[in-house]
């Protein structure tokens, strides 16, 4: 059955590729059908079906095609299908042919290539084909990021993404080549007992970690996700960075992992989580801020993943199960609420034409649906009960508390881990209070914000659907336990799939009650207020009779306290023009958080590489005499070496 569904999806994907440029309706229909097929197949595997495996009789590029859909790949494929489907529908209204006659058809074609190559990466069990599909989706993502390449900023973001991705791909070339050389074939599969393969995991960590956006390998991520069209940002942030996580999980499940790598993953996860959200607080660009939150959430996923690795290195402690379940569930959760937030940001951009938070404000009046969806996503990403983000963070906290009281190997890391995770949650909350408050509440800060309008159902529908998925995981976490447990078992066969644990059921019941009573209380208070009488007046701004929108608190001021704590790494730049004289003519104050990691660390390193390269390039200048000289010197050296070898 799974083979039929996947064949159906592949056929639909083929039609989608063919129809992308000239028949948008047909394209949308077949793309949704393909994703539906993929989703059904993944759910069939996740709900207890057998893993599916297929090997072709013929060879492609010298290797037979080897596909496999087990619970781990099905887990990520389901996320791909849901987020991909929502973004596909959204793109129809967000990037229509009427507005973008040239880039919209090209965008559809690259979108199809991206979806298809992501699915192939998830299914692939052959190193060579994996690498080809990986490169294909990297390129497709580049063309999607630079879909509207008229501005310099977009081109620079695309270029940075392409360069960074290829540094990662270089590591992966080395990884797969060395793996194939040592194993003797390109075919991939469980090889956990080959201890000599363990050092290769470092290469995989660098290559896949770059794609996942681990701090400090995240430098390409904020600008790429901020400058891409919003449906592409949703896809990049919701799915493609998770593919990096998938590959890390896949190869840590198949190959032996050195224990130092597990500790590195935990440390990198903690750094990504805390610093990702600290950088996010300093941003004024709505989408760039969301992009930094991707770094934070990848950090949370990696904390769980790293602790699970430590646990399995020490005889499979019980808290390792909680940690890996938390990491996997957070993959789904982050995919859902982050794509929801990016689509919401896209609607804001669509309605007002700006991503600059200091020019927005008061959008709730014109865009109630977008506001409601965005605030829901914000509460979910801040890890607030009763939504899905809390469920996975709760699982992770349970794992860390257990690890701490077990006094085992992981407890030294679990103590700071739990504290930093708590701080990350509070920081994320501060950040999203800022975003929601500044963008959607209060009064409009500029004319475009005042003229905003709600988008049509083509854009509202996907947001509502993603929001509903967030609420569903939050209110009924026990339903989602068995897919997570099956995916965890596919990662490490030592983890057995059991029924949902009792505390999870209790948490689900508490969430239901909390949601029900919260809504009832809100309704009751509203009725009470209506009964006693409601009058509208200007804001009581401590006696100012006419507060203006310009007097509202800004995003920069809101975050100022926290950014001053993190000034040692954020290095915020201040441009102030103080008012002078009795009648000051003009004064200004601007705060800006630069891409510190890129500008202070990576760029100097890149400059050194460039200088060395250009020094080497001086050897190549086109003078034939000099080349002949090199040849003579080379021959003399080889001769000398041969003589020296012969003499010994």
């Amino acid at each position: 059955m799974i083979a039929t569904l996947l064949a159906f999806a592949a056929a639909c994907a083929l039609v989608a590729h063919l129809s992308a440029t000239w028949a948008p309706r047909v394209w949308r229909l077949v793309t949704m059908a393909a994703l539906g097929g993929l989703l059904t197949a993944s759910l069939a595997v996740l709900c207890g079906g057998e893993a599916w495996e297929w090997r072709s009789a013929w060879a492609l590029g010298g290797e037979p095609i080897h596909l496999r859909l087990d619970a781990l790949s099905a887990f990520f494929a389901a996320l791909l299908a849901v987020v991909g489907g929502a973004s596909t529908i959204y793109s129809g209204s967000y990037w229509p042919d009427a507005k973008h006659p040239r880039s919209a058809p090209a965008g559809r074609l690259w979108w199809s290539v991206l979806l298809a190559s992501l699915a192939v990466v998830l299914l692939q069990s052959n190193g060579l084909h994996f690498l080809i599909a990986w490169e294909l989706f990297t390129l497709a993502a580049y063309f999607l990021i630079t879909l509207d390449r008229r501005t310099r900023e977009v081109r620079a973001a695309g270029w940075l993404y392409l360069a960074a991705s290829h540094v990662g791909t270089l590591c992966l070339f080395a990884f797969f080549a060395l793996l194939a050389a040592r194993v003797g074939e390109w075919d991939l599969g469980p090889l956990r007992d080959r201890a000599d393969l363990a050092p290769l995991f470092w290469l995989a960590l660098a290559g896949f970690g770059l794609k996942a956006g681990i701090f400090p390998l995240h430098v390409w991520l904020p600008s790429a996700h901020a400058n891409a069209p919003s449906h592409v940002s949703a896809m990049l942030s919701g799915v493609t960075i998770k593919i990096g996580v998938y590959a890390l999980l896949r190869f840590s499940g198949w190959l032996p992992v050195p224990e130092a790598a597990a500790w590195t993953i935990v440390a990198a996860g903690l750094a990504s989580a805390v610093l990702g959200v600290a950088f996010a607080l300093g941003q004024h660009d709505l989408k760039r801020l969301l992009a930094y939150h991707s770094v934070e959430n990848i950090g949370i996923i990696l904390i769980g993943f790293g602790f699970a690795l430590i646990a399995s290195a020490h005889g499979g402690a019980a808290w390792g199960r909680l940690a890996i379940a938390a990491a996997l569930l957070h993959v789904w959760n982050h995919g859902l609420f982050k794509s929801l937030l990016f689509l919401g940001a896209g609607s804001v951009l669509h309605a007002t034409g700006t991503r600059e938070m200091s020019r927005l404000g008061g959008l709730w009046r014109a865009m109630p649906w977008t506001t409601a969806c965005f605030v829901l996503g914000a509460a979910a990403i801040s890890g607030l009960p009763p939504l899905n983000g809390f469920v996975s963070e709760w699982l992770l906290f349970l794992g860390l508390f257990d690890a701490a009281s077990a006094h085992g190997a992981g407890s030294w890391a679990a103590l700071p881990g739990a504290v930093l995770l708590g701080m990350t949650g509070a920081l994320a909350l501060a950040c999203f209070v800022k975003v929601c408050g500044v963008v959607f509440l209060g009064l409009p800060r500029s004319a475009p914000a005042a003229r905003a309008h709600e988008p049509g159902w083509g854009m509202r529908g996907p947001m509502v659907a993603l929001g509903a998925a967030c609420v569903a995981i939050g209110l009924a976490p026990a339903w989602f336990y068995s897919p997570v447990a099956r995916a965890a078992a596919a990662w490490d066969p030592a983890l057995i799939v059991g029924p949902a644990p009792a505390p999870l059921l209790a948490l689900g019941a508490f969430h239901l009650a909390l949601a029900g009573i919260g809504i009832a209380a809100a309704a009751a208070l509203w009725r009470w207020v209506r009964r006693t009488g409601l009058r509208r007046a200007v804001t009581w701004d401590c006696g100012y009779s006419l507060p203006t929108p310009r007097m509202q608190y800004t995003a920069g001021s809101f975050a100022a306290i926290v950014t001053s704590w993190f000034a040692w790494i954020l290095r915020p730049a201040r441009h102030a023009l103080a008012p002078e004289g009795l009648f000051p003519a003009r004064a200004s104050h601007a705060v800006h958080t630069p891409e510190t990691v890129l500008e202070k660390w990576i760029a100097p390193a890149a400059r050194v590489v460039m200088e060395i390269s250009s020094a080497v390039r001086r050897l190549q200048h086109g003078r034939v005499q000099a080349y002949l000289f090199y040849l003579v010197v080379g021959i003399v050296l080889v001769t000398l070496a041969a003589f020296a070898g012969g003499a010994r």
Partner: protein
Amino acid sequence: MLPGIINRVKARVAGRSGPPLLQLYHDLARLGRKGVVMSMAASPGHILGVAVAWVATAGAALLLPLGPWASPLAFRGDAILFVYLLALARFCTALAALETGSAFEGMGAAREVSYAILAEAAVITGLLTLGVQSASVSLSEMLIPSAGPGTTLLALGFFVVLLAENCRVPFDDPNTHLELTMIHEVMVLDHSGPPLAVILHGASLKLLLFSLLLVQAVLPLSAWPWPAAIGALAVSVLAVAAAVGLTESLSARLAFSRVPMMLTTAFLLCLFALLVAWQGGAA
């Protein structure tokens, strides 16, 4: 009732007779009858957020055990839910404050969420201490075998967090009229009528909740017979309220730049308590 006691203690120290103990309830009843004036910039969330915040605080209170009786809702992991329910209340209050677009309330919300980062780190560290002591993640079990070696440190840390989270001097002044210097009170400037009553009730509920947490983290109440345990609990909560009143009377409000330092001190106290507990468990 606790704000009444605190006010009475403050008044006594200042040589006044002070308002009646149940003044808060008079205020609540009066506010409940009044109409509401809402800012023109605010959405219905301005009022609905208040209700959700109250429900979250009440839900957190229900998770606490009461002396010898475990909480009726106790389950493994409710300690974390407790922390995040308070975070939900904070999220709603801060957003309700930002609804009005008032610069003062923006300032208050910014301070509230920023200082909460340090306070939350201290609370998580404190809970981790209790968790390591009792090898449990449920408040009802974590608070039983208290009186570990680091208790004094933990109690001091929790007391500072209580002062900060409930906006008492030296972090905040619940009585001042200078909005520039406040945190919590300034966030509710634009609330009136029944929503304000709900906010006031929620705030005193939160004070009671933190006092209960503090007392039960220190005293091994469950080992005693229940009348003694309940008596001791009540007396200790009153003592905490008196201590808050005394602190308010005897100290001045801190400069804002020094608030993070004070909270970091609380965090470090909890951290030392944690290390003591961890070493004790390992030995």
